[in-house]
C-alpha cells in the first residue's frame, strides 16, 4: 500500500523491547507529510530506537504502524526505498575518499554515478575542495557533512536525522537547518532526534518529548513547558505496558 494521502508516520501503541528493557512504550504518533518534527529527550529516552523502528531496522515488539502509508511489519523494502536515515556515526568508510564514499552510496542507492553530480553534492556541503581526501582525515564536522551529501543524492520522502547537530560548528548547524528547509520545500518530511533541544525546536512544526521510552508530550514548540526543555527534568511515570 502506498497511499499519497496517508500521513508520513502513523504509530499506534508501538512498543519495542531490547533485551529486558522496554526502549519504547506504547507510542502513539502521527506526523503529517511535509512537516518537520523534533524528537527530544535525555540520553536513553528512546529517540534512536524510535528512528530505527521507523526506518524498519527494528521490528516493533507490539503495536502497529505505517510509514508513508506502508505497513511497518511487512513493507521494509518499500519503506527503505523512500526513507533515509542519517545515524549518529554517518556510515562512512574512513579509507575511502569523499568522492568514493559518495560513489558507493550512489551505486547502493540506485542513483546515477555521474561524476558531475557527485561533485555537485560535495559542493553543496562545502567539501568540493577535499573530494580526493580520505574520510578518516576529516574532522567530525566534515564527516557529518559528507554523510549529509550521501542523503542529498537520493530522492527521499522522509528523512530521519539522529543527532544531526553533534560535532558541528555554527556553519555546520546552518547547513543542517538549510537542509531541513530545503527538504520540506520539496515536500519531504523530516524527523530530527537530538538531545540539543534548543536547536531542535527552532525548525520544528511539532515536538515529540520522549522520556524513558514514553511519548511524554507531542505538541507545537510554543506549547512546550519549561520542564520539557530542561535536560534534568524528571522522567514521566511510564504507562501500563501492553500485554506481551
Amino acid at each position, binding site marked *: 500500500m502506498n497511499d499519497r494521502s496517508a500521513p508520513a508516520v502513523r504509530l499506534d501503541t508501538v512498543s519495542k523491547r531490547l533485551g529486558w528493557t522496554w526502549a519504547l512504550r506504547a507510542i502513539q504518533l502521527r506526523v503529517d507529510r511535509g512537516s518537520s518534527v523534533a524528537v527530544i529527550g535525555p540520553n536513553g529516552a528512546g529517540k534512536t530506537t524510535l528512528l530505527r523502528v521507523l526506518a524498519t531496522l527494528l521490528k516493533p515488539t507490539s503495536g502497529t504502524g505505517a510509514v508513508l502509508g506502508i505497513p511497518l511489519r511487512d513493507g521494509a523494502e518499500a519503506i527503505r526505498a523512500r526513507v533515509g*536515515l542519517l545515524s549518529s556515526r554517518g*556510515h562512512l568508510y574512513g579509507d575511502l575518499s569523499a568522492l568514493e564514499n559518495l560513489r558507493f552510496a550512489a*551505486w*547502493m542507492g*540506485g542513483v546515477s554515478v555521474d561524476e558531475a553530480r557527485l561533485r555537485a553534492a560535495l559542493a553543496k556541503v562545502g567539501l568540493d575542495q577535499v573530494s580526493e581526501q580520505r574520510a578518516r582525515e576529516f574532522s567530525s564536522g566534515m564527516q557529518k557533512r559528507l554523510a549529509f551529501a550521501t542523503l542529498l543524492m537520493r530522492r527521499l520522502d522522509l528523512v530521519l536525522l539522529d543527532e544531526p547537530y553533534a560535532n558541528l560548528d555554527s556553519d555546520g548547524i546552518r547547513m543542517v537547518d538549510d537542509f531541513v528547509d530545503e527538504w520540506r520545500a520539496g515536500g519531504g518530511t523530516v524527523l530530527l532526534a537530538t538531545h540539543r533541544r534548543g536547536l531542535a525546536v527552532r525548525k520544528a512544526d511539532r515536538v515529540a518529548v520522549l522520556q524513558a521510552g514514553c511519548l511524554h508530550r507531542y505538541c507545537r514548540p510554543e506549547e512546550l513547558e519549561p520542564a520539557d526543555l530542561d535536560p534534568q527534568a524528571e522522567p514521566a511515570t511510564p504507562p501500563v505496558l501492553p500485554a506481551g
Partner: protein
Amino acid sequence: MKSSLALRTWAILWKDLLIELRTKQSFSAMVFFAALVLFLFGFAVGPDTATLSRLGGGLLWIAIAFTGMLSLGRTFQSEEVAGGLDGLRMYPGEIRAIYLGKLLANFSMLVVLEVVLVPVAAVLLQLEPWGRFPLFVGITLLGTFGFSVIGTFYASLTQHLRARELMLPLLLFPALVPVFLGAVNGTTLALAGDPLDRIGGWIRLLISFDIIFFVVCVWIYPIVLEE
C-alpha cells in the same frame, strides 16, 4: 529507485577490495601467517619426501583454513567501524547483495593468497602441483569457494557476538567438514597424479556441497540479517 542485485554486489566488492588495497593490513598478515604455518609443518614432518607428498594436500588446506579465518574475521570489520550494517540495510534493494559482495571479496582475497601460497608450499613441502596443474587449480578454487560461502555466512552471524573470534571457528569448522574432505582428498590425489583415477568422486562432492551451501546461504541470509 532501486539498485540491481548485480550493481549492489559489485559496489560492496569494489569497496571492500579498495579498502584492503589501501590498508594492506589483512593481506600482509595473512601471507605472513600462512607462510609461518607451512614453515612449521615443513619442520615438523621433516625432509621425508614420501610423507610430505602424502600429507601435502592436508597441510596446504590447514594453512588455507587458518589463514582464511583471519580474512573472515575482518569481513564485517569495516562495517562495524562505519556504524554497523544498518547503513547498508537502509539502501533500497535486494539485501542478499551484502552477502554476495562480502562472499566475492573473501573469495578474491583467498585466491590471491593462494597464488602466493602455492609456490611457497611447493618449495617448503616439496609439492609438485605442476603435473596435473589444471585439476589442482580447479579443486583449490572449488574448496576455496565452499570455504568462502560458509565462512562469510557464519562471519555475518557472529559479528555481534562479544566472543566472535572464538565462536566463529567453533561454529564454522564443523560445517566445513564436507568441503575440507573433498578439498584435502582431491588436492592430495591431484598432487600424486591420481594414478587410479579416483578424483572424480571428490570433485563431484565439492561441487555438490558448494551448490547446496551457496543456495541455502543466499536463501536464508535476509532472514538471518533482518531477524
